[in-house]
């Protein structure tokens, strides 16, 4: 047998070069699918940003006659000397750091638990994902009822065990930690699943190696399980940081920023300023500090950690 070709098929297989005209180039194809979406997105980014930017240079008043007075950078300067802003800022940072650590830690723990499930028990994995499907405001309601001394599980258990006391987590000292725990409850399953997907790609031989090296469980985790997960952890650190700083509905339904202003994170301060006080110019200026906080935090994470991971 020499060749498969037969004369009649040869011409057909040799398609003439005419198709080239009908085929889109990379750029054209990219333009066709991206431009409409990008225009949409740019509008929905640019419009509110531009609007808010304009507001932020004005003092907006609705009462005693509407007025918008140009005040330049005054709003921005005022924010920096606003005690409520700094209080909210510190609470946001505290909430975010705690949420990130708890979410990653708990996500990791969940992943380790479901990884080791024997095949017949694998269906349990499906249950662990469920809290992720709960909305932030739903999670807020759950944790409000769970944490309050009046309705909470602490009080119920304490009394069931015979202690006549009320255990309350919604206190000035604990509320942020408690909220972070709730946020972690909400988001950790997703982290767990992506970590699990990565863990399953680690060659089992490495674990045998670790055993031969007589590594302790902890060392095995540290030197075998953890390294391939680092990029995933980095990505989720970024995601959870952004989501935590942005979070509003969760805190709105859980504590309304309370008790007092103990959980009035920046988004809540912003909500009060813009919605309750209708101080729109000032609120807009504050929202740019909030945006800056988000960008700077993710920037810091990227430059101190992400670039190292990306190079790897």
């Amino acid at each position: 047998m020499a060749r498969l070709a037969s004369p009649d098929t040869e011409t057909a297989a040799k398609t003439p070069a005419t198709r080239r005209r009908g085929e889109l180039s990379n750029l054209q194809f990219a333009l066709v699918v991206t431009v409409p979406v990008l225009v949409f997105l740019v509008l929905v980014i640019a419009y509110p940003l531009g609007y808010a930017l304009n507001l932020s240079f004005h003092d907006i008043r609705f009462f005693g006659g509407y007025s918008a007075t140009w005040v330049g950078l005054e709003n921005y300067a005022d924010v920096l000397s606003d005690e409520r802003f700094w209080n909210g800022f510190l609470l946001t940072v505290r909430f975010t750091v705690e949420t990130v650590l708890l979410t990653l830690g708990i996500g990791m723990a969940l992943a380790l638990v479901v990884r080791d499930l024997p095949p017949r028990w694998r269906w349990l994995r499906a249950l662990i994902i469920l809290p992720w499907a709960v909305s932030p405001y739903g999670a807020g309601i759950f944790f409000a009822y769970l944490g309050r001394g009046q309705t909470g599980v602490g009080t119920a258990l304490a009394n069931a065990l015979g202690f006549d006391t009320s255990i309350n987590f919604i206190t000035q000292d604990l509320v942020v930690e408690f909220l972070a725990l709730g946020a972690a409850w909400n988001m950790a399953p997703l982290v767990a699943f992506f970590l699990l997907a990565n863990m399953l790609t680690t060659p089992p031989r490495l674990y045998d190696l670790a055993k031969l090296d007589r590594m302790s469980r902890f060392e095995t985790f540290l030197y075998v399980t953890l390294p391939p997960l680092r990029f995933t952890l980095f990505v989720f650190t970024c995601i959870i940081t952004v989501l935590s700083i942005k979070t509003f509905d969760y805190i709105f339904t859980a504590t309304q920023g309370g008790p007092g202003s103990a959980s009035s994170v920046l988004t809540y301060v912003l909500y009060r300023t813009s919605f309750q006080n209708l101080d729109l110019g000032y609120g807009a200026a504050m929202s740019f500090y909030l945006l800056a906080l988000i960008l700077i935090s993710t920037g810091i994470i990227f430059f101190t950690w992400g670039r190292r991971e990306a190079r790897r």
Partner: protein
Amino acid sequence: MTRSRITIWLVLAIAVALIWTFLPMYWTVKFAFMTKPEISRFPPLLFPPDPNLASFFNIFGSDYTLADGTVVPASGQARQIILGLRNSLIVSVVVTAVTIFVVTPLSYVFARMEFPAKGKLLAAVLLSVSLPPVSTLIPFYVLYVQLDLVGTLFGLIIITLTITIPIVAWVMIGFFRNMPPIEQLGRIDGFSRLYIFTRIMVPMARSGIMVASVIAFLFAWNEYVYAQVLVTGSTAVTLPAAMSGFLFQAPEPGHLAASIFLSVLPPFVIAFFLQKHIAEMNFV
């Protein structure tokens, strides 16, 4: 997998994981099966003493007679709950469909093609992830008033897309990046870019698209901040906005719990059946 044996530690760990997962939900959802006095009892009850389904009937507008003959009246919020359920389904399904339809080609292009200004455009897409809804609410509201979109499903769908598109794009770009260079195979076989994309890449990306759909659906279904301002008190009210009526002002923890229970069912079902795809798609 290092050890697949069931040890006492593993059982313990599973127990803790399950308690962690279900306790917070259970604690509120149990209210749905309790009467008002039972809910407000102090110290709080660990279990519904005499479970009943009154709240579920009430939120759909029916009175319910308890075993002892007490009639629990229907909720006045029932109309909004029913409306909210319908609207939430419409919004979520439409948003999911549009998001997937738009984002799949978008992220494919960003993940696998080179073109000018790609980096900057990508940055713009991702920047919109970090815009907090609280700060864009007022501008959007004003715009919507001018466009007469307040209180419309269409308006809510548009604004929800601004949340889902960047996030889903983010996930899908990662997913497409990790796929083998299959389009080269397709080009050798003489297929157009459109054919390669629609008939080869999309079928191959099925599990990624599934996960992206779940994410889009969840974000749309769970959206509350914009809905609160844009559609509360209108015929376009969504379930979260309708539910919040049980949370503020007049106390109806039972109804709240019943409607939360209702509201987590669809995402639960979806997440439950699609979780295996999540484990498959490894996008980062």
